[in-house]
């Protein structure tokens, strides 16, 4: 692949990842759900170095059904923590094109610095995020998003947003 094409792919992917971040920070969950391919997997592993998500414990290991149930939980008003959800602000950066899958999907890694605000305090969640993105027209759909929290193996706190 030419450098030019790779540069363009990465720029488009970065733009898409920024969009995804914005949708989550503004809690536009319906739009967020629409970013996914039906077989997409949203994974937040406990161990930041994990490779076998299916046979290990994750914070989230979501197929389409779990994603939509998760969104319902966050928006239904039935959850006391989600009804007073933290405000979040995430910066995404350090985009790197790792390669392509056999199906031609982009494999990208980015950095994510997320700050939540709730109960008079800020908390920080920092993660490497790995993406598999499928081209669709001028944009992408998410095949896989893996959020590898730096402190995933240690004690976190109740999370009332989607990292």
């Amino acid at each position, binding site marked *: 692949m030419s450098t030019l094409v790779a540069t363009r792919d990465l720029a488009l992917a970065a733009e898409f990842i920024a969009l995804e971040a914005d949708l989550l920070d503004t809690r536009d969950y319906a739009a967020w759900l629409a970013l996914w391919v039906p077989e997409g997997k949203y994974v937040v592993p406990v161990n930041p170095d994990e490779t076998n998500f299916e046979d*290990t*414990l994750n*914070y989230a290991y979501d197929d389409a059904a779990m994603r939509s*149930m998760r969104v319902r939980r966050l928006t239904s008003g*039935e959850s006391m*923590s989600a009804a007073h959800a933290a405000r979040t602000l995430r910066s995404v950066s350090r985009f790197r094109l790792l390669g392509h899958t056999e199906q031609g999907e982009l494999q990208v890694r980015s950095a994510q610095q997320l700050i939540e605000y709730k109960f008079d305090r800020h908390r920080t969640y920092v993660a490497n995020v790995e993406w598999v993105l499928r081209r669709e027209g001028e944009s992408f759909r998410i095949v896989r998003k893996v959020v590898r929290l730096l402190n995933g193996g240690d*004690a*976190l706190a*109740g999370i009332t947003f989607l990292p």
Partner: protein
Amino acid sequence: MTRDYSALVKDDRVHTALYTDPAIFEDEIDRIFNTTWVWVAHDSELPNKNDWITTHVGRQPVIVNRDKAGTVRVMLNRCRHRGATICEAKKGNAPGFVCPYHAWTYGTDGTLKGLPLPKGYKDFDKGDYTLVNLRAESYRGLIFATFNQDAPPLEEFLGRARPWIDLFLKQGGGYPVKVLGEHKFTFPGNWKIQLENTTDAYHFPIVHKSFLSSLDGDTGELFSFMDAGGYVEDLGNGHSVMVMIPELVDLEENLDEPIPERFAELADELRAEHSEDEVRRIVRAVTGSGFNVNLFPNLACSMAFFRVLRPLSVEETEVRHIAIGMDGGPAAANRARLRLHEHFQGPMGFGTPDDAEAWERVQRGSQAGEDSVWIMLNRGEDKTESNAGDVTAETGMRAAYQMWKRMMTA
């Protein structure tokens, strides 16, 4: 000034200072966590000789290991020279321990084996510098430790909780129970708020409404246990059991009942390698037990996982939700267990964040009316020994606080 602890714990209520007073917290560390049996590990975390993990007893860092003779030991994670922690990783396997500061080297039983430049010491007896060993005993794979050489034997301490532990372990489905992983989180609140919660069925349909809404019809019915014959029983020594789903007390009974629809796919997958009897036993075990056994002060065998609490300060507590499964059992069954655990537990579960929010609110509320507003424990005041029929009775909390009072005034 030491407070009169017996005046702070009444039969039906406790004083707010139990959540807020740093001096009481210091006394709790001393008189409870440094005095009684504290759960530290499950056998499956140390399958081989020389395996070790790091954890805490109360506030003190310890190493739990299986020494080269196969004996489980619990030792302070602190070099006898200048006091550095010896292990900082969560787990490992090693034929001995070397302090990274000056390379004092210990055997797996904690005896000091060697040190650099020994001629720098006069009359040095290595026998004086063994790593501090706690008393360690285990019951059915549950490993406990205590600093107290005079504590009763572990089995006596567990007492009437033992048969419930036996029942809980039937969720191995014919295999030994094995730790599959854990979620860990902290909340800004006192440790006893969490201690109460695993024997609090009353909150379930309120706090966990969003979880209940996410379940299919049959499972939702299973978790509608407010009026389903459950009960709470005081088991002595601060321990208690809360039975929420009576038909899931003994997982080896009712094996001929139809397999629930939600497990049909799993059952099909298991049938490839297992007899119909085994499939039924495994599927029923995947569901988990229908009760919580609360062991004072830090462990709950809670339906399908171990809940472990650690007091960090008067208003900060760490909670671990340890997922368990079948050691050597079918991968599909263990995957199902992992997915069920992820659904409810942990910082992103459909249940835990709401619990954590409620507990934090209890702590925040404790700033108001310290002397006038007490923490009420009078629900389902004991009319019969077992409080038969009332799963929402606060019997388990009363049992824990009576043990608290006994230990704090001893």
